[in-house]
């Protein structure tokens, strides 16, 4: 297989394009998803932080909440016992108070000082304010309030999430087990104090809530945890992409296979035809329009090739056939003459017969070569501006004797018609047509020649009142070696190539020639030549 495969090229380009598209989309999708997840994680951390706030910032029940603010918070007190990390021990009584001497101090107020249970009505016995409503935590995602979780494990829903609480003195007040050791302390807000904000530090995403004089709550998640999920997602995405690409390539391969299969069929058929059977044609089962058109064009070419090949074969057969007769004359005459001793005059006669036949063969060969040369364009015509009527007149003069013998009258209708012709060869044409007309004319009739200029071209017409041309012979009249049924007895003179040569000459001039029968009997030959 010579050259680069179209199929392979289409496949590579198509595959590359598909891969680029699919992978770009996948990457975009991946990045989008990563953003989404990160934002979600951040949102969750903020939520978690918000959920932790009531646990670790003691709210001041006396101060009504400001508009837009969640309950005001009391600062974290040192003496507040830190809530157990797992929030299990709601009911463990707090250790008894001790005053600075270490003696048992006054009993703890019954007001709850730990945040791991919702304030009870009993907490607010001393006040006359209605118990404040528990702060509502609105889910950032659904927009609906979330029930206050009871356990930290519910707040931090992911095992990798952690939290850490500093009090206002930057001491770790509470933390989850998995909190990293190296969280840097923050005591600043992003925007407003008491607002939760998110920071990313290498390896961690953290939500921070700094309440001045109260403390800082941090919830966070190692980036790796987020990434883990993303990695899985990326792998899924990659395998789907690869699948799509694979499928695309597969389908592409199959489809190009169909097209190239047709082309291969054409190539095979053409090879077969060229090497052997010219009558075969390309036959595609379900041709596509493009390849089908190609096959049609090729089939046409093959038909033309077959036609001209057959013409050649016919011609060769005709030519060798035409030479058979003169050859057999020579052979038989020679053999007869030599079969016994004869007298001089017999030998002379035999030799002269042989010579005549050889001359005939010579004419046939020369005429054939002449036609071949005209047809192949090898012979250059000697075109000059010349009067066609003069040429026709000349031919009449040359054939006067022949016409007289059959008492044929030649009538002429000549107008000076100047155009580019080869005078010598046009003379040949005129002689051929005129002599045919005379030969096939009935005794004593008229042959007419007309030469004039018409609108589009120049006209030459030779007509006789002879026996005409048989209808079935008309299409073959100008064929080589074609002879009508009737001959006039001069077989040796008549090569059957006269009209073929005439036609070749006319065609070489760029003209046309037609033969027809006249309505009242006789034949008519009409030649047109281009005007110069």
């Amino acid at each position, binding site marked *: 297989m010579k050259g680069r495969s179209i199929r392979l090229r289409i496949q590579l380009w198509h595959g590359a394009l598909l891969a680029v598209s699919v992978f770009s989309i996948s990457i975009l999708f991946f990045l989008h998803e990563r953003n989404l997840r990160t934002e979600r994680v951040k949102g969750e951390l903020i939520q978690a932080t918000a959920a932790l706030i009531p646990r670790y910032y003691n709210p001041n029940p006396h101060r009504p909440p400001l508009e837009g603010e969640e309950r005001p918070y009391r600062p974290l007190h040192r003496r507040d016992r830190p809530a157990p990390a797992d929030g299990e021990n709601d009911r463990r009584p707090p250790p008894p108070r001790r005053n600075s001497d270490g003696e048992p101090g006054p009993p703890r107020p019954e007001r709850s000082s730990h945040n791991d249970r919702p304030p009870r009505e009993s907490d607010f016995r001393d006040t006359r304010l209605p118990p404040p409503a528990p702060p509502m935590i609105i889910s950032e995602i659904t927009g609906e309030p979330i029930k206050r979780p009871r356990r930290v494990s519910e707040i931090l829903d992911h095992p990798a999430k952690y939290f850490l609480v500093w009090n206002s003195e930057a001491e770790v007040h509470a933390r989850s087990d998995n909190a990293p050791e190296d969280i840097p302390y923050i005591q600043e807000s992003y925007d407003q104090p008491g607002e939760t904000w998110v920071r990313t530090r290498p390896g961690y995403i953290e939500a921070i809530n700094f309440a001045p004089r109260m403390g800082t709550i941090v919830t966070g998640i190692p980036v790796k945890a987020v990434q883990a999920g993303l990695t899985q997602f990326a792998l899924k995405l990659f395998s789907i992409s690869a699948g799509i690409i694979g499928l695309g390539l597969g389908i592409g391969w199959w489809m190009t296979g169909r097209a190239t299969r047709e082309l291969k069929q054409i190539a095979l058929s053409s090879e077969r035809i060229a090497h052997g059977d010219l009558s075969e044609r390309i036959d595609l089962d379900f041709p596509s329009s493009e390849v089908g058109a190609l096959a049609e064009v090729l089939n046409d070419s093959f038909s033309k090739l077959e036609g001209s090949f057959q013409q050649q074969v016919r011609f060769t057969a005709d030519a060798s056939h035409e030479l058979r007769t003169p050859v057999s*004359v020579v052979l038989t005459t020679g053999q007869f003459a030599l*079969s016994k001793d004869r007298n001089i005059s017999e030998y002379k006669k035999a030799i002269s017969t042989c010579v005549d036949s050889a001359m005939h063969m010579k004419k046939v060969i020369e005429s054939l070569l002449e036609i071949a040369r005209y047809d192949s364009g090898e012979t250059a015509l000697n075109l000059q501006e010349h009067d066609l009527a003069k040429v026709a007149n000349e031919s009449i003069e040359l054939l006067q004797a022949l016409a007289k013998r059959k008492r044929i009258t030649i009538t002429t209708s000549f107008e000076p018609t100047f155009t580019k012709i080869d005078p010598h060869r046009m003379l040949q044409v005129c002689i051929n047509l005129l002599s045919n007309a005379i030969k096939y004319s009935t005794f004593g009739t008229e042959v007419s020649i007309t030469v004039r200029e018409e609108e589009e071209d120049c006209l030459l017409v030779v007509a006789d009142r002879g026996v005409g041309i048989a209808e079935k012979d008309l299409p073959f009249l100008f064929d080589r070696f074609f002879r009508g049924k009737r001959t006039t007895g001069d*077989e040796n003179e008549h090569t059957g190539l006269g009209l073929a040569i005439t036609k070749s000459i006319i065609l070489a001039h760029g003209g046309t020639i037609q033969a027809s029968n006249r309505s009242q009997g006789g034949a008519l030959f009409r030649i047109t030549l281009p005007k110069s």
Partner: protein
Amino acid sequence: MKLLVVEDTIPLLETLCSALREEGYIVDSAANGDEGLYLIQEHNYDGVILDIMLPGQSGLDILRKARSGKDQTPILLLTARDSVTDRIAGLDLGADDYVTKPFDLQELLARVRAICRRGRGERTTVIRISDVELDTAKRQASRAGSPIDLTSREYAIIETLIQMRGQSVSRNYLYEHLYSEDDSTLSNVLDVYICRLRSKFGKDFIKTQRGYGYIVDHQEVSV
């Protein structure tokens, strides 16, 4: 024996006729199909050499018409058309042989002899009757081993009589087959020839049938 040659190439026609005449045949000729058909239908020939590509009727048309008219004349097609299909067509139409041009003259003459022989139902070229031997290929007669000198005309007559041995051969038949239209015949010319032949072959060899013709007895000596 009388032959007809129908051929439109004049030099060839003339040479063929000369060659056949030199062989001792009487030869009629025609250069176009119509004339050829006419002659075949009008006369009885011992053989016809027929070209196919003729002006007027083609050789095949003539062949067809002759055969459909139950004409049994042996016909040899002589033509430039040499394809196998042409040969088959010609032979199937009823030709006895098919020779293509160019041809070897001697071969053609031998084939002509063959079709004429077959026309007579004869398969052998040498016929023996008592001590007379006739070699139709060599166109010689001999008696008791020694060759007999015969003119062409004499050979033609004795050949006819011997080939039709056992049958009476009418004088008319002899005239028809042994004289061309151009010969002016006097009825007793034949008698002269018969007399000469009797002197060469023996008095009883040729018997006369009064008012009808002659006969050579059918006494074959098997070879």
